[in-house]
């Protein structure tokens, strides 16, 4: 009896699960299996071409005693901090700018989203050439306004910022679109009322509209 009930419950979800099956297989093969295998690889010595040898905690001990570890941790925090700051501020500003655009909003919305669609490898190749010290696009543009060539990825002082720009540029479009969706939930009459009361652009947004989109902002941050 109970078995029959279970079967009936199962059959209710069968069609949905069958639809999900290809995605589950792809995720399992290309995401979960590598994660699990990497976890076990942590405890193994692996030379490509030969069978891995179990060595227990030796790899973890080596990492903890690696003199580069403190620098690596600092670099990680620096990178994450920069990405969060840029990845939080830039999409909001873009979303506000796009919301203000009256004509061609669809085009600009698509334009900011295009970087999201670029494969990672193509993205890094593009930015590698943008940052190229001698002939890169960025230095050429800066040269037009008299700024000397910068080293970007070759400079210890600029490399972290350069890498953060590369990483956040790819994703800011998606976040912008989501912020725009959040802003679209704000009642437009509030904006009109604020304008009628004589509020300037910044006052409108900072005091009135942004606070009302804090739910979507908190989710996205």
């Amino acid at each position: 009896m109970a078995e029959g009930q279970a079967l009936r419950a199962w059959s209710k979800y069968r069609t949905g699960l069958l639809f999900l099956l290809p995605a589950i297989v792809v995720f399992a093969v290309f995401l979960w299996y590598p994660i699990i295998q990497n976890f076990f690889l942590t405890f193994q010595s692996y030379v490509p071409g030969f069978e891995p040898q179990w060595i227990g905690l030796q790899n973890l001990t080596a990492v903890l005693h690696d003199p580069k570890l403190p620098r690596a941790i600092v670099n990680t925090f620096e990178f994450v901090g920069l990405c969060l700051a840029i990845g939080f501020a830039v999409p909001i500003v873009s979303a506000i700018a796009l919301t203000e655009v009256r004509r061609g909003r669809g085009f600009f919305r698509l334009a900011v989203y295009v970087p999201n669609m670029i494969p990672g490898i193509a993205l890094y190749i593009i930015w590698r050439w943008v940052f190229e010290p001698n002939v890169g696009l960025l230095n050429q543009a800066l040269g037009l306004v008299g700024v000397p060539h910068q080293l970007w990825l070759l400079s210890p002082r600029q490399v972290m910022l350069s890498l953060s720009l590369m990483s956040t540029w790819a994703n800011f479009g998606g976040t912008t679109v989501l912020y725009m969706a959040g802003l679209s939930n704000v009642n437009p009459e509030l904006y009109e009322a604020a304008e009628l009361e004589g509020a300037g652009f910044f006052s409108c947004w900072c005091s009135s509209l942004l606070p009302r989109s804090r739910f979507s902002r908190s989710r996205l941050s």
Partner: protein
Amino acid sequence: MKRILLVLLAAFLAAGVFADPVILKVPVPRDTPENKSRIQAEMAKITRFQAANPGIVCQAINFDYDNTGDFLVKQAAQQAPDVFQPWATEAQMLVSKRWIIPLDGYISTWDKKDWYNKDAYLPFVVGGTRYGVPDQNYIKHVLYNKEMFAAKGVPVPSADWTWEDFVKAAVKLMDKASGVAGFAPMGKGAESGWGFTDFIYQAGGEVERMENGRAFAAFDSEEAISAAKLFKDLKWKYDAIPANWANGWGDVFNIFGSKQAAMVLDADWGRNIIINNFKMDPKNIGIAIMPKGPGSKGRHAGVLGGTFLVINGLAKGKAVQDAAWKYITFERWDDANLALVQSQIADSRSNHQFRAQFQYSPLLPGSPYVVKERKLLEANPDAAVAWGDAAFLAALPRTAHTEPPVAAQDAYGKYLANVVQALFTDQNVDPAALMKDTARKFQAEVLDPLNAKVK
């Protein structure tokens, strides 16, 4: 009884006839437009090899050795060739991972083993055992623009020129108004560290020293520091290098080819860019051994590197390893090799180009192959370049300095490259402190962990 013996004989013969052939994975150059003729030549060689060795079937794999991505992935997938050509710096790493096998047993029975300069094997001698056969070698030296030297009245480099002569020439040849630099060093990437080591050796310094099988960073010496000071002065005191100094391997030859620099260092293939891409007349390119560093330890020195032929440690079984050795020695240094050079010359001629590379031979000078190849190049001045006169070719081997035996690519790309960039970006950097600090980090972060594994 007779019938039984006949059946046994037939079975024995059938086993031989129908025995599985030995599958040998061999490398051919990567499939790019510029490699088309090299691939064709290699495929033709494979055809001849298979005809000469029935029972061996070659599987061609598009592969050029590199120490980051492709080789590691192919090894993991057991797809790497059974014979491959790693760089001269890779011996310790490949041996430590059992990725190559000792070759002493094969070399000792090889009829051409005495054709080689015995020092040519050194980069691939580990623990007294040879693991590789020299394939294509180079010894770095200086290329200079003869016209620019003549126009500025600068004496061409002599056989005993020094750093002082080199700097004087660079300063006189520099023309800031026209954007011409006296000397274009490599300032970016692992090649910048590689190029910097030439000057460390010229000053009498070393990058590493070995003690009881363990490696120690040695570029914190006074001699190595003087090389760092030279680089700093070239940039900040003499301003003799390009304003945009962040140039990689190909960039410096583009700069030289477009006459934006009068001197550059090259090993072998850089001049191919200068002559075939920029159409510079080979007669206008002078070559000279490296200048001698200062002091009593100063010497004319340039990096000796290149590629070696090795047998993959993953090659399954003695039959495959034997087949791999046969492939390594097939047509090596014989008339078929000369035919290959001839076809390269013909190819270049048909493309209105030059076979421009300078491939320093690991064979003893005066060996039959070296003499024949030289004559072949000299007989085709419209499509081939025979580099160097007798004096240069006699002096060059004496300037050879092998690369660091342990973690050389790490030293070049992660430590010495940073030194070069610091010297070119910070006018106030202290070369001594920089070299000492970098040597300390290299020792602690790379060499000490490797030394800990040495028994």
